[in-house]
């Protein structure tokens, strides 16, 4: 095996990264990974990944923090849970993928990934109203990431609207003030 230039010395590894992942609920078992590749072989999007789940996992253990967090592949996880049910070591792979999304979204790298922006747009609509509004969500998301997508998808939008499937008015829950107070508190208590 060729040695990776970036992990030639133990001192270069960011071993605290493993701990960052290990403390999230469900993340503790990552140390049991036997690199069998079942997760990657089961993954519907791994065909496009440079670092499939298995690769990400050894890199986490090798302390390659930046390399992992910079990877766009983290945001290609659809949460289909196929890896999760197939992993022979019962590692909650999907939950670790979620954890990687969270850790990377605190870093600036994630600003370039569309998955991050979709999640952020979704949260800002729901934090405001208590409910999602698909029309507004898509407007926000496409305007931010690929305005051309709006034009490209307008026909689909129209077809949905004609069938009563694209409501224009947002719906706000009744106890919205309390809801916002709850969410603000959760935000302040959250560590990751």
């Amino acid at each position, binding site marked *: 095996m060729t040695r990776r230039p970036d992990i030639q010395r133990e001192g270069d590894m960011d071993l605290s990264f493993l701990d960052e992942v290990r403390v999230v609920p469900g993340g503790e078992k990552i140390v049991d990974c036997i690199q069998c590749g079942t997760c990657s072989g089961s993954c519907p999007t791994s065909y496009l990944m440079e670092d499939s789940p298995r690769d990400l996992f050894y890199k986490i253990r090798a302390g390659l923090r930046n390399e992992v967090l910079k990877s766009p592949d983290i945001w290609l996880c659809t949460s289909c849970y196929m890896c999760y049910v197939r992993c022979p070591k019962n590692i909650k792979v999907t939950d670790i993928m979620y954890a990687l999304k*969270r850790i990377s979204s605190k870093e600036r790298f994630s600003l370039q990934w569309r998955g991050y922006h979709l999640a952020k747009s979704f949260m800002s609509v729901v934090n405001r109203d208590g409910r999602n509004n698909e029309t507004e969500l898509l407007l926000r998301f496409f305007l931010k990431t690929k305005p051309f997508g709006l034009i490209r998808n307008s026909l689909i939008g129209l*077809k949905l609207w004609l069938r009563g499937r694209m409501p224009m008015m947002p719906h706000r829950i009744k106890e919205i003030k309390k809801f916002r107070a709850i969410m603000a508190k*959760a935000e302040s208590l959250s560590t990751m």
Partner: protein
Amino acid sequence: MPESYWREYLYYPGCSLHSTSKSYDESARAVGQALGAKFVELSDWNCCGATAYMGIKELTAFTVSARNLALAEQRGKEIVAPCSGCYVGLNKANNYLKEFPEVHKKVNAALSEGGLEYKGTVKVRHLLDVFTHDVGYEKVKQFVTKPLEGLKVGCYYGCQIVRPRNEIDDPECPETMEMLMKACGAAPVDFALKAFCCGGSLMGTEEDIGLRLVKNLLHSAFRSGIKVLVTPCPLCQMNVDAYQKRAGRKYGMEFDIPILFFTQIIGLALGIEPKKLGIGREIISAHEVLKPYI
């Protein structure tokens, strides 16, 4: 008239059933009523958090789900969610709060800002689970007035209803929907990709991946001779319905396989008017396939 099943549930429609998946809401309520499962909407429910919150902040993800659980706990009944995404979200929060007491404590601290508390006693159910395991195939069969003889229906489960493991069905080779379809007199046809991913929200972020997954599914269904698909998931319905033509174009194939919610097909077999089941809201029209049964 056979004796109906009788039980009350707290119905949690979730955001999609109020917008893109109206037909699921309409048919779920109509079928519930016909079979005697009483669905009372959980009042002032909020979004479940979907997959978005979990990718940004864990505690907010658990809290946004837990507010619904706390509201349901006050009513002392089981929650039933028709949307697979909502089901997974609520269920995940519920299980994690049990498994990780320190997370539970923080969630309760947040909830208390809105005068709520969640003790942890609510059970979260999926609509498919309620119809198969509570009402049961036999009961459904008794209520069928228009058996859908010869209807070649493919049951598309998607991901989040069977995974991660739960009590509903096998995570990779589920068959509860097929059993329900049989109870309705239809002829369910198996296909290889019935529990594979439709791309989920990647259809918005990475359309090429979404289109490829949808193409794979449709191709697998087509080769099995399936005439209509049914699903218990709003996102699956949306991706396979609204992006079907685009996926076909991209790969030089022509697909014409309507996708409905499983409740719409059950409703037809129970003799409920198609309009009340939201049939006609789909983009790939099911009219031709269903004509003999309407």
